[in-house]
């Protein structure tokens, strides 16, 4: 069985808002298959009795910060790298759901 097919790559591309042409689809399908088969080596380990880890430092838990204000960035700085802006807003293509 193929580790990833073109339909899945297309679907993931859509979720990521990427438009792939035919050549790219071919290329990425191949590359992703190669990456996934390498990673799938991990499946060979028996993890039946190992609790899932959600954080790299297994002994660390309950790390909090107090509810105290810290200075925010200056709005001009925030918008400095924006490809498009209007006033103090970021500007982007229209995204009204349902229209």
């Amino acid at each position, binding site marked *: 069985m193929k580790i990833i097919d073109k339909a899945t790559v297309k679907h993931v591309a859509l*979720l990521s808002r990427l438009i792939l042409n035919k050549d790219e689809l071919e290329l990425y399908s191949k590359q992703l298959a190669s990456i996934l088969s390498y990673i799938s080596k991990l499946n060979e380990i028996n993890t039946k009795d190992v609790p899932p880890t959600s*954080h*790299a430092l297994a002994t660390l838990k*309950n*790390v909090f910060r107090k509810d105290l*204000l810290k200075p925010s960035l200056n709005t001009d700085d925030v918008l400095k790298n924006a490809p*498009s802006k209007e*006033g103090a807003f970021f500007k982007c293509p229209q995204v*009204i759901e349902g229209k």
Partner: protein
Amino acid sequence: MKYETVIGLEVHLQLATQTKVFCGCSTKFGQRPNSQTCPVCLGFPGSLPVLNEEAFYFSIKVALALNCQIQNLIKFDRKNYYYPDLPKNFQISQYDMPLSYNGVVYIAPQGSGERKRVRVKRVHLEEDAGKLVHPERENYSLVDFNRSGVPLLEIVTEPDIASTEEAYDYLVRLKSILKYLKVSDCDMEKGSLRCDANISVRPIGEEALGTKVELKNMNTFKGVRLALEYETKRQIGLAQEGEKIIQETRLWDSEKQITTSMRSKEEAQDYRYFPEPDLVPFVVDNAVIEKIKNSLPELPEAKANRFISEFGLSEYDAGVLTSQIDIADYFEECVKLYPNPKTVANWVTGDIMAQLNARNITMDELDVLPSSLTEILKMIESGVISGKMAKELLLESIETKSRPEDIVKKKDLFQISDTAKLEKMAKAVLKREKKSVRDYKSGKTNALAFLVGQIMRQTKGKANPAIVNEILKKELEG
């Protein structure tokens, strides 16, 4: 065929912390766009989230007040989707191990007289997204990230709600509990409290659930009620015509009072959840859970029961008084100053709440001292003023922010209870209003009310109506 409705509700609640859930930016509403942002809530590469302790414990508090179990090991997950209001392209949320689960809220819709359980499936903590603004007649949208990262609690029920009335009652009671806990301002206008609904219909007796429709964009509780009513009718109509109900998201249009399909370009939801590796797991000791449980305030239902047993109030009055914490507190303060709970309850649920409704404000905003009301009640009891004068006095006291006693002194509002003076007036009236006297004597007893009214008018409402009544009766019959 008869149909029944099955509803599940999903409430999003912004927690009233000073700072965002994973960074130190302010959560203050209504500020200049993008002025409360930093590398964390803007999703800059390399920035790391750290959980706000207050947001976490507020969440535990809500979970316990809704009778939920707390998860042994709490972790966060990334919910992946691409949308301009989400700078990281994922939302930090909770997936398979929510903070809490298996809760219950008791409802008692008006008129049904029955108490019903609505199971709470889960309560979990996540971050809010930014705000999108869509300028009219333009082909672009604007993004403000001030809201990005504001702590958001998601409260999801099981599909236990069987009517729009039940849905409305659940929301009112949930909001009341949340206000008691003081964890959020619950202000729907500011978006601090938002509600989505899942609704389906099925033939009565049928076990399997019908196809569900998700309803969004209902900005008020009234909107929720209207949208659910509309959707119930629409779905039953389709079912009766033998047409298929499509699983979809529909938006409530409050102007046209209809729901419309939200034709999303997005494919089936595919969020590719995975654990958030930038946050450590969280464990709350049982001792801490117990401590928080014990520190919870008396909640609306318990308070209502106490008002019934301690003050002898009716179930209805107790329910109304305890529906809002500030009204319940006000009532109790008044009873301390004037220990006649039933009278106080009548005035608070009557005149005081009428003022709140007429002005559409809260008790805090009305800013009337408990002693203002109790002074007035004491004056009625001692006969200094009449009940009618009392109502006007309360209003004036609220409007001018002055003590009722001072107003009475200044405006010479003392009630006339001087019997000799009133007798003299009564005799004059009887002499003048011969027709009414004849009417009364021929058995038309309501002529008495007219005669009392004459004296009340003459004294600009200051005469003590009970005494006037008595005197006139004595004169007429004597």
